[in-house]
């Protein structure tokens, strides 16, 4: 027999001697085995389901953090307020080796943190004349004055001696901000913010609620307590002792090492690197050196040991594919 060979010298698989092989039986047995294994694993280990955190939970547990966060939304100091695309134009966001991909993406989910997260929900509160008066004072002030009031109050709250406690803030010219923030924490604790921050009746898109929650410290504190922090291999894990998404290990790995770990562009750099590595994986057959690794490290001799034993073929390492 003279095997037909491809350009790389590999013979046509259809000219080799054959043996009986029941593909359907193999699949059915595999299906039964996997089904049984799944049933057992599901019964023995179950799955994690820690209740979602609400804004009300957050406000009840840590009203001072709600006040600090809301003040940051007004002053522009919160994560969302200064984020940039796709939420606003407060910054350009990250870049990949100087290429502003985040900026190029554009503002597709516009969020005015001050008004969408704080002022508009407060305007929905009925029957609180003091709050109405404070909101009136706020709205009549210039944008610069608003930013100064909120910025000064945010700075005061963030002082180490104050520790975010509004009762310890030294006196100063904060305008109506302290009173508005106290009202805001009260509304949040009563559960009124959930719907007011949302953009639709159905609530399929909780982006605004999630961003507001994430601007505070409660979500991260809870995540870190469950070993889910960014420097704890973050989002590839899940709550409890479950495997999570181990297939994301390489992506998560880069966040644990320099220069990514301390870079302001860590996300863009890691994404860029992963895109290159992924492209490399897909194109292994075309990359000299990479495609030769299976010859240099002859695991294939184990896989096809019966064939090599019977045919006497050895695999010379000097040959290139």
């Amino acid at each position, binding site marked *: 027999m*003279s095997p037909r060979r*491809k*350009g*790389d010298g*590999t*013979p046509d*698989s*259809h000219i*080799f*001697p*054959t*043996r*009986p*092989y029941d*593909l359907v039986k193999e699949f059915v047995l595999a*299906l039964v085995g996997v*089904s049984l294994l*799944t*049933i057992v*694993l*599901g*019964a023995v*280990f179950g*799955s994690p*389901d820690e209740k*979602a*955190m609400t804004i009300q939970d957050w406000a009840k547990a840590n009203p001072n953090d709600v006040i600090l966060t809301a003040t940051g939304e007004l002053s522009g100091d919160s994560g969302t307020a200064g984020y940039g*695309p*796709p939420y606003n134009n407060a910054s350009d*966001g*990250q870049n990949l080796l100087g290429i502003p*991909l*985040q900026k190029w*993406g554009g503002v*597709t989910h516009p969020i005015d943190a001050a008004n969408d997260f704080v002022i508009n929900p407060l305007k929905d509160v009925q029957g609180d004349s003091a709050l109405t008066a404070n909101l009136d004072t706020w709205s009549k002030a210039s944008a610069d004055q608003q930013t100064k009031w909120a910025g000064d109050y945010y700075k005061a709250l963030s002082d180490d001696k104050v520790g975010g406690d509004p009762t310890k803030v030294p006196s100063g010219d904060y305008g109506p901000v302290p009173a508005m923030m106290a009202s805001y924490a009260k509304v949040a604790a009563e559960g009124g913010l959930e719907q007011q921050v949302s953009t639709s009746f159905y609530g*399929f*898109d*909780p982006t605004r609620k*999630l*961003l507001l*929650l*994430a601007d505070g410290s409660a*979500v991260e504190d809870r995540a870190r307590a469950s070993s889910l922090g960014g420097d704890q291999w973050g*989002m590839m894990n899940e709550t409890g002792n479950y495997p999570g*998404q181990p297939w*994301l290990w390489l992506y998560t790995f880069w966040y644990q090492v320099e220069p990514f770990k301390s870079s302001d562009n860590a*996300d863009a750099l*890691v*994404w860029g690197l992963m895109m290159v590595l992924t492209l490399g*994986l897909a194109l292994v*057959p075309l990359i000299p050196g990479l*495609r030769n*690794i*299976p010859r240099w490290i002859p695991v294939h001799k184990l*896989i*096809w040991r*019966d*064939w090599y034993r019977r*045919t006497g073929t050895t*695999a010379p390492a000097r040959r290139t594919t």
Partner: protein
Amino acid sequence: MSTTSWTVRLRDRIAHTVPEGQALPDRQPAYVASWIYVFGVLTLASFLVVLVTGCILSLGGIEWWHTSSIGHYVNSLHLWSVELFFFFMVIHLWGKFWMAAWRGGRTLTWVTGVVTFLASVGTAFTGYLVQTNFDSQWISTQAKDGMNSVGIGAFFNVTNTGQMLLFHVVLLPIAVGFITVAHVILVRRKGVVPPIDAKEVSA
């Protein structure tokens, strides 16, 4: 003319996609004799279990499994079938790497396999985003920064549960299924890659 009929052309194309008798053969080359070959079919089998458990979860709606013990168990089945799916798939991928299974004009078979893996990662990831519990809150608010940093977040909003749900239950499973079918057809078309430096032997 019947020979230029689109129907005839399509029929001929389908008929010649794989060599005659190789679509579902009852014999394989003699070198197909290793446990490593089982992991491809185990991946396919677990993909089917993932689809079935996912469909059962869909019957109850997105938040059913939080309030029903049966729903929670089905969610557990879905989770563990996904874990098994990736376990088998990664071993399959590594096995094919060490076999240099792209040889003999099988580059596209390798590429479709890698793309299937990537699409599967995306499908599983969106599943984690739509759990509507604390895990999904944390994962989505963390993942948004990566997506946004390269502009993907502008149209793929990981904090939009409704969008992620549709990706998870419709778009990405269709993509995984479609590429998997293409991958299997390519395997059947080219046959299982022969051993590295295989000598010709008499039948």
